[in-house]
């Protein structure tokens, strides 16, 4: 049996050692799986690294894959910081992309690139509103936000799919091939978000926007009264209301911020990559859920979310590029899951010391054999 003992203090180096250690441990565990499937872990991993970060165009593709994750990761970390478990990032992402594509379709031609900020604004409103449903229920009726935000994911997915497959909506292509196969209307090219060249790497505009939002979230949570209140409410709601903080409003506000961040991810989805409303593709992506994993790996730090999103995006990108014989689908997801579990375990390692608990410490054997020697607890100070 294993027992845990709370550490009194948290050594600084663990902040770095945990994520890196957990990634290494996950790679080792993953290599067992790869070996079992008759492949060489070394060549598999080097192919992943090559296709994720090294080979020509790989990093650009990785940034594309990382952009949605950056937003959903920020969304999750913004809410989890206050102990509000918004797992509705997926639905808020979908709502963001529905509203941004509506704006793009409506004003893309007339406004040119000027439509981009409008798309972002629309996505912020839609994402915040969608998350606000769960937020308001939690704040004013103390309804568990985990389940409500989750349920809202499916409702949003159904809404998206209805717009394209079962209605004659504004988003749907009702001419040409659209009559045969239900699909979304292509947004005018003027509403496409630019790719910015940075040497050989092209950076999606959405990724830059995400970095700005990450910095903004960081400042908001670290340097403002709002962030102070979020810290206190997240740690002890009783202390917060004792000090006169408006905890309900904050729950709603944090939920809305979180939803807005996920929503902008949806706008970037339309503006940067898909350029149509594609409910099926959105559904399969699962960005909202991966975002939670990213937030956890980044230990809810918005700046670290950028790094982790690029890492996970790299895995996704490589997984997609390499899929085929000798590279089973699902390997990348498995690796991501393993990294997360090892990181979660490592997090505990940081907060606790692990002791092997021996059932018979006080028993006759221990005391008879070893009078005066330290009991097998070991690592105590």
């Amino acid at each position, binding site marked *: 049996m294993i027992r845990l003992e709370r550490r009194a203090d948290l050594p600084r180096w663990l902040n770095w050692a945990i994520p890196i250690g957990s990634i290494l441990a996950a790679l080792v565990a993953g290599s067992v799986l790869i070996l079992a499937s008759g492949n060489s872990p070394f060549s598999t991993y080097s192919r992943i690294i090559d296709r994720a970060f090294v080979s020509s165009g790989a990093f650009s593709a990785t940034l594309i894959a990382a952009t949605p994750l950056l937003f959903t990761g920020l969304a999750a970390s913004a809410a989890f910081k206050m102990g509000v478990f918004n797992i509705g990032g997926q639905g808020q992402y979908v709502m963001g992309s529905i509203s941004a594509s509506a704006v793009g379709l409506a004003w893309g031609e007339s406004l040119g690139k000027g439509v981009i900020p409008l798309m972002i604004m629309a996505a912020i409103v839609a994402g915040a509103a969608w998350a606000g449903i769960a937020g308001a*229920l939690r704040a004013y009726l103390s*309804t568990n936000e985990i389940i409500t935000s989750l349920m809202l994911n499916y409702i949003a997915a*159904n809404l998206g799919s209805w717009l394209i497959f079962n209605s004659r909506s504004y988003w749907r292509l009702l001419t040409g091939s659209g009559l045969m196969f239900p699909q979304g209307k292509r947004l005018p090219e003027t509403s496409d978000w630019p790719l910015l060249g940075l040497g050989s790497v092209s950076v999606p505009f959405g990724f830059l926007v995400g970095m700005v939002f990450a910095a903004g979230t960081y400042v908001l949570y670290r340097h403002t009264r709002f962030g102070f209140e979020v810290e206190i409410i997240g740690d002890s709601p009783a202390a917060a209301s004792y000090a006169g903080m408006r905890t309900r409003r904050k729950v709603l506000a944090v939920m809305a911020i979180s939803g807005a961040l996920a929503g902008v991810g949806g706008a970037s989805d339309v503006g940067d990559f898909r350029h149509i409303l594609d409910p099926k593709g959105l559904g399969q992506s699962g960005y909202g859920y991966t975002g*939670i994993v990213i937030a956890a790996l980044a230990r809810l730090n918005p700046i670290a979310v950028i790094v982790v999103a690029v890492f996970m995006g790299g895995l996704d990108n490589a997984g997609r590029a390499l899929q085929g014989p000798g590279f089973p*689908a699902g390997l990348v*997801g498995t690796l991501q*899951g393993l990294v997360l*579990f090892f990181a979660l*375990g490592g997090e505990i390692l940081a907060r606790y010391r692990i002791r092997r608990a021996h059932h018979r410490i006080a028993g006759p054997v221990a005391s008879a054999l070893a009078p005066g020697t330290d009991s097998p607890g070991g690592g105590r100070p």
Partner: protein
Amino acid sequence: MNANLFVVIAVSAIYYGTPVLFAGLGEVLTERSGVLNLGVEGMMLLGAVSASWCSARVGGPGWLVLALSVLLGMAAGALGALIHAFAVITLRVNQTVSGLALTILAGAAGFSSYLANVWELKNPVRHQFGKLDVLGLKDAPVLGPLLFNQTLLTYLSWVLVAACSWYLFRTRAGLHLRAVGESPQTADAMGINVVRTRYVHTLIGGAFAGIGGVCFSLSIVPTWQDGMTAGRGWIAIALVIFGFWRPDLTMVGAYLFGAFASLSLTLQARGVKVAPQLLDSLPYVMTIVVLVMVSGGWAKRRLGAPAALGIPYEREER
């Protein structure tokens, strides 16, 4: 509504409701012990892929292969649950995050898909659960198709609903389980092993979710597809709340869900046009409504939400 339409809807309600019923029952037991496992979707897929492999690759008489498939599916689901149990019970990792991690690890783009690839599960399974004709009564009016023409898995689910109800409310082990979910401190002081109770019921929950997955791969969609459970794991979690943490009401919820899931097809076949997404959304909306209704301390106490749900138990802390 004429009797015929009712029967058609009820039959498909049972058909689509059975997998979520299994998974929901398992989650009821898990949550009753105070552990929230959001990894149901992943565990269902693990169960589905293992059973799929067993049915495709293991030789022998059909009944034996099917039995083995179910057992293997249960074992796979329980194995997934074991990861979660270790993380949240022993390491006291946040239960929400761990459950999501399990879904990512095992889910549609994760380990279940990896296994299916490695095992090359491309063809339809060789054995699957067909509908039985019990006592030759399948054509009896109304009750025939409902009660006497189901798959073995459905009959198994009915047995499990009764067994779980009895276990939870009529046995000492059930009393202890509920005590662990309500107040682990009290249970511990009374000599009940909190850690073991939570492990056992998290694993049982995983095994049940595994059977839920088997329903998909050996009955509903007999050819492997990545992510074939299509989000039903989340429905199972909602069902637990919808059913107030009770097996019998969970069954009602599962069949309601099944009815809604199939209603649009049924109605369409009869020329009634309803957007399927609207009907699909109803179970989710209903879950939110129920959740709002049970919010607040009084209702929770009456309706059975385990008081210690989601809270790690730590004995030796000062």
